[in-house]
């Protein structure tokens, strides 16, 4: 029974890890690859670690380390992915040709337009006062 649970969890983990690895190899641009990589961690590494916990028993030295690692991965992986994607976007890593929209660029343009309109308005007011 225990072996069956370990095998199922390990197969789930290995399947997701494999699909994530194929995604990292085959995806067209960096942003898709980051998404694949973070899926590899949350659905690939955590079931494998839980398989280790189930297989060795909750009170063993393996399970405490495995749970600690699972917690650290769950905490740090989204933060690292976010920081990396943000840095890549700021340094101008190109998007895939088929990418549909870039909401950050749209928001920046909207902000610039509003700022320019404000400046024009202020200048007009100054001229009227003169």
């Amino acid at each position: 029974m225990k072996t069956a649970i370990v095998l199922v969890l390990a197969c789930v983990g290995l399947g997701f890890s494999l699909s994530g690895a194929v995604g990292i190899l085959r995806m067209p641009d960096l942003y898709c690859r980051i998404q694949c990589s973070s899926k590899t961690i949350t659905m690939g590494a955590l079931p494998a670690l839980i398989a280790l916990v189930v297989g060795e028993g909750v009170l063993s030295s393996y399970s405490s380390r495995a749970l600690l690692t699972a917690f650290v991965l769950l905490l740090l992986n989204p933060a690292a992915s976010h920081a990396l994607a943000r840095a890549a976007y700021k340094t101008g890593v190109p998007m895939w040709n088929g990418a549909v929209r870039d909401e950050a660029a749209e928001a920046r343009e909207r902000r610039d337009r509003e700022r320019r309109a404000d400046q024009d308005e202020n200048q007009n007011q100054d001229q009227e006062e003169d």
Partner: protein
Amino acid sequence: MHTVYGALALAEIAIGALVVLRLALGPTVADRIVALNTVCTQAALSVFFYAAYTDRSIYLDVAIWFASFSYLGAIVFARYLERELL
């Protein structure tokens, strides 16, 4: 049970080897960082299962080190990229 752990360690190493291809190919620095991060996580998992396979719990500390410091590395690299120091 021990054979299962050995097979799992080998499988994680094989998956990591797939990602090493992206580490070698990756057109930008950020691509390589993503690949390196994934390889490190796979390496940590395989060390975990190897420790269970050989019944030596001293290897577990190596696995924890691998898993946590690869993220530290990714965050530091991202910071360098953002400040345009790399």
